[in-house]
């Protein structure tokens, strides 16, 4: 069975205030193209369909039309909600879509309801289990079932007994996977699991939002043992585990300067009848490229070295010692899509540890001399020094009384 695996479209996202809609539309066009040309049995969109819970209208419309186009080739389309999506909104008509070949799952409790796909090569159907993002407050209630996963911690009772305690992403993933295994066992088919989570060992970049506020909660690869292909979303760079059984497709477009060097693609996974998977990557080459250019303002404006970046989305790092005037305006003359401007000096300062000048460990006397030097521009002469020293000492004594 042939699977087209993509994820993290983030429709409706802006890049430093600039709308990405057109580029996203172009990327989706490309994906639709690939889908039509490749005899795809199953299209997987593994979460973060939109960038926000309330996406803008045009984003919704784009998604709607794209799904229709994908389905029109006969491929089954299965999508899940990610941590950016509002699961309830995204998955609102999923029950009604049953049997139509399209499934957009946002309800965690239905994560063990299989969608059967019959591949074109007439081999046995494959069971697809879409697991929406396991939002901690909703997930526990949704997954509570007769299947008990050992999530005892510090003497806690089994998961089913836990009422309001927060479970970690790893625990929730294991719980969901168990339910799926229970269902799979009754079918004896090849299986594909779709999930939106942070796999332990994966590499992140600046643009992923933390799954739970404040916690980088990772899921171990052992949680998804026993499934033939695990299609993941959330991390923006494409990467695989266990030789390709578990994979992230990555975003179709770069969404932050930390993805500057990523090659954006979709994955085509070929699953043979024994369940083993071979993956190909198809680069998308869509959207404005990201470039970080470093130099003095003068260089950046004049040097031909930077000509390649003129049409790209540019982040400039200035090496100038002093802040140049109207730097952004000037930059944007050459690089109309310059979105970020920083000074190397400032970056360096930001990276260093901040040392306060009003260092509490400096004695008042040193402080007063600092003041003198700063205001007068010279060291105080011997008589002035003596007077200052006396003033400090005398007042310290008086204050201490």
């Amino acid at each position, binding site marked *: 069975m042939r699977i087209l695996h993509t994820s993290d479209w983030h429709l409706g996202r*802006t890049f*430093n*205030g600039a709308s990405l809609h057109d580029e996203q539309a172009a990327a989706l066009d490309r994906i639709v193209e690939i889908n039509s040309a490749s005899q795809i049995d199953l299209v997987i969109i593994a979460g973060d369909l939109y*960038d*926000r*819970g*309330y996406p803008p209208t045009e984003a919704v419309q784009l998604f709607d039309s794209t799904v229709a186009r994908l389905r029109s080739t006969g491929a089954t389309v299965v999508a899940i909600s990610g941590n950016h999506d*509002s699961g*309830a909104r995204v998955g609102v008509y999923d029950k009604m879509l049953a049997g139509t070949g399209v499934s957009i799952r946002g309800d965690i409790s239905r994560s063990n309801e299989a969608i059967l796909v019959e591949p074109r090569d007439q081999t046995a159907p494959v069971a697809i289990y879409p697991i929406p993002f396991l*939002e*901690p*407050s909703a997930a526990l209630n949704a997954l509570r079932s007769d299947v008990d996963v050992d999530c005892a911690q510090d003497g806690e009772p089994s998961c089913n007994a836990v009422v*309001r305690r927060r479970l970690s992403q790893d625990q929730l993933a294991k719980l969901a996977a168990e339910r799926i295994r229970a269902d799979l066992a009754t079918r004896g088919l090849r299986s594909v699991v779709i999930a939106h989570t942070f796999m332990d060992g994966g590499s992140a970049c600046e643009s992923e*939002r*933390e799954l*739970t*506020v*404040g916690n980088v909660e990772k899921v171990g690869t052992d949680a998804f043992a026993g499934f033939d292909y695990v299609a993941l979303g959330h991390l923006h760079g494409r990467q695989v585990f266990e030789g390709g059984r578990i994979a992230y497709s990555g975003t179709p477009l770069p969404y932050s300067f930390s993805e500057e060097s990523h090659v954006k693609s979709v994955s085509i996974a070929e699953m043979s009848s024994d369940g083993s998977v071979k993956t190909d990557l198809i680069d998308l080459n869509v959207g404005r490229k990201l470039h970080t250019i470093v130099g003095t303002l003068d260089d950046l404006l004049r040097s031909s070295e930077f000509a390649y970046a003129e049409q790209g989305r540019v982040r400039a790092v200035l090496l100038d010692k002093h*802040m*140049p*005037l*109207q*730097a*952004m*305006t000037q930059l944007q003359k050459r690089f109309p899509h310059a979105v*970020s*401007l*920083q*000074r190397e000096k*400032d*970056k360096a300062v*930001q990276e260093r540890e*901040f040392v*306060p*000048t*009003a260092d*509490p460990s400096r004695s*008042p006397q040193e*402080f*007063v001399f*600092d*003041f*003198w030097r*700063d*205001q*007068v521009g010279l060291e105080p002469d011997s*008589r*002035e020094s003596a*007077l*200052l020293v006396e*003033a*400090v000492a*005398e*007042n*310290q004594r*008086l*204050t201490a009384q």
Partner: protein
Amino acid sequence: MKPHVLKIEAFGPYAGNEEINFDQLADDGLFLICGETGAGKTFLLDAIAFALYGKVPGGRDEKSLRSDHAVGRAVPQVSFEFSLHEHRYRIERTPTHVLPKLKGTGTTSGASGASLTRLTDAGESHVAAGITEVNKAIEGLIGLTEKQFLQVILLPQGSFAHVLRANSKDREALLGSLFDTVLYERISTWLQDRSRSTEAEIGEARRAVENHLDEVARLWAQVSNEPTETPDINVVIDGVAEIASQATAAVDATKAIVNDLQETKDAIFAIAERWQRHADATRQLADLESQAASVETQREVADRAKHAAQIAAAIAAPREHEDALTDHNSLIDAQLLVARDAVATASIVPSDLAGLDLSGLPAQADLVAANTQLAIFLERLESLAEDAAKADSAEARVREQQEIESNERAAATESAQRSEDAGVERVEATRDLAIARSAQDRLNGLEADLTVATERYKAVAQLESTLISHADAQRTSTEAKQAALESKEKWLQLQEKYLDGIAAALASDLVSDAACPVCGSTEHPSLAVQRADAPTKQDVEVSQSAYERLESKVQDAVSALGYLDTSVAALRAQAGASDLETAHAAVAKAQEAFDTASALAAQAESLAERVFDLDTEIATCEDVRESSQANARIAAQNIKHSTAEAIALRASIAEHIGTDTSIELVEASARVLVEITSSLVGFATTKAVLESARDATIKARDNALEMSIFADIAEAVAARVEVDALQELQRAIEHHDGEVMKVTGVLQAADLSDLPPDQPNTAGATSDVEVANELLESAIKHQQTVLDSRNRLIEISEELQKSEGALSEMIEAATLLKGVADRCAGKLEGKISLQRWALAAYLTDICGYANRRLYTMSDGRYSLQVDRNAASGGAGSGLALHVLDGYTGILRDVSTLSGGETFQASLALALGVADAVQAHNGGVRLDALFIDEGFGTLDAESLQRAIDELDNLRDGGRMIGIISHVSELRERIRAGIEISKSDTGSTIRVGEIAAT
């Protein structure tokens, strides 16, 4: 400061009891406070502010804080538990409020109150109570006033940007309260004060110099009578010197004149003196001559008095002796009277004395004899006194011994009695002892009896039960036998049948004339017939074993029976013929006998002891009685002996003095008599001596009178004159004579010879001299004044030099001091003061911390800068904040930022303040931060960055509460406090916040 629990009752929109446990939310660190508009989100923060400071931000009237929906008479209260400096506290506050009356309609007001308690593992300890105390305590603990708290921890709605937008003065106040710059202010003030006081000193020094110059002018004027305006001191000194020398010359001239006049005067005075002397002497002589006649008379009287004095003593002497004699005689008479009385009253008067006639003085020899006799008598009396003493002690001994005798007799009698009593007791005790001993002997036998009786009783008891068992066993045995028997029969039958069967089987095989495998016979007469119900060997065996089992059971039963037989027999033997009751009675009886005997036997020892003690006592009593009797006898002996002695002595005494007087009395009177006689002897002797002396003096008198100029005694006496008067006369006479001689001599002196006839004129000469002296005096005074002035001027000159030198030094030091002071006070060229600079340094640090966050939130575009130099001077300088826009490179005023940019900058700044305060000595730890709204101004990307930034804060363990209705936040932040509004007030729920 870390919040733990907030409890609200009947406060603001919260009608009932609401509780927020921040610890629950602490794990999440970042939480949302959400609810409808007007539900009371902001009021939650107000409650915290109220709890701590007693005031609600926004200036709401305290009385209106009680919830309008409050039930009944619920009292509004806020209770807030928090940790600070590693201690945990709870503060409770109630605002003044109005309650419905208990009875009737209308309202009554309730008082406000506050209390602060410290909570420890051991319990609660009271820290402060009452609003004033609590407020003070809180301010000291937290270190922030209400205003500052609202700028640093609790960032209320709409004033989030205040720190950013505040003018420099307000910023100064805030910074000043967070960072301690008092020292620098003090240094500045101190320098100013010093500068001012140095100025004052300089002023004084200048004045001193002027005073000197004034004095110079004055002195010159005084000396020269020429006023000078600004005198040069050296010129003045020279002028004064000139004048001084002139004055000296004048003085010398005047002195010469005075001397001449003085000489003239002296000469005149000498002549005047001689003239006077002569006149006086002449007058004196005339006076003396007029007195000559009376002086002659006096001479004669004195002469006669001398003669009378010479014989006065002799004339007086005899009278004196006569008087002495008369006195002595009266003494003798008195003594004789005393003697007569003594003799009359004396109890014993020796013979010689008795024989004297005491109406007149007896002869000396008689008196001596009586005296001697009396002395002998006294000696005898002394030895008699000794005897009396001896008699007394003998009598005392008698009494003593009598007492001893009676005591001893009594003791003897008592002992005898006791001995008798003891004897009686002993007899009794001996008897009891015998009884006890016999009981002891019998004890063993009785014990044995008891044992037997007990055994028998036991046997009887057991016999009954054993008999029953025996009967059972017998029955069992019989039954078993029966059963066995039956079983055996069955078995045998079965065996037969089986054998028959075999036989039959065999039989069937049997052929005539063939040998039977069993018996070998070839004939088979009665062939066994196969039976239908032939049992198998197995059946047989089963039956056999059944029988065998039963048989063994029989054996058991039989042996059991046999055992029981034996038991019964034994028991019977033991029990004898008695039944249970009898046996029990026997046991009881034997026990009683045994117990009694034991009791008696137990006493044996103590009884034996008692007998022994009694014996001992009897013996002791006997001894005592014997010894007492012996002592009594001895005492009787002593009595007899001493009595005899006393009688003898008393008799002897009575012999000498009779029986109706004592030796003491006799001795006393004898002594008196001796004294009297001795004195009488003395008197007699003296009398004789006095008489002869008198006679001698009479003779001498008569002689003296014959040889004098007087005719008789009367004349001699009349011529007498007192010694003093006589001396006076002598003196007067001599004086007169002397004077005459003196005056005569004077008149004949040499220097009174050539004298002028008239008296010389002394008065004129004197006045001349006086006038001259006056002139001299004034000249000297003038000279002195001038010299003094000159000295003073020299002094002043020296002083001036010194003063001027010191003054210039002072001015130099003052200039330096002023320079430094002004610098520190920021008064120079638009620079800033030390304190301000310090605050600016802190502000720079705050911006440093803030910029780190702002960099992340604005993707490196904005940073905050402090304007260190005064732009326009004045109070606002040095603490101005500007924003540097990286895109334009221009410093912008903070008011030019958009809403969203302002929020970012304000948030960064607020966090920067918290960071700086914490880094700097950690005096005020800001562990919690509450932000009321403002997130609505951010676009999605900026919101994401802001949340990321807030998220990073939680690493420090800080808790951040956000009030916002921005739905994006509800998507991201799931933990929080949800406030629900209803008609009856608002309620609070803490926990998971569902996404909208």
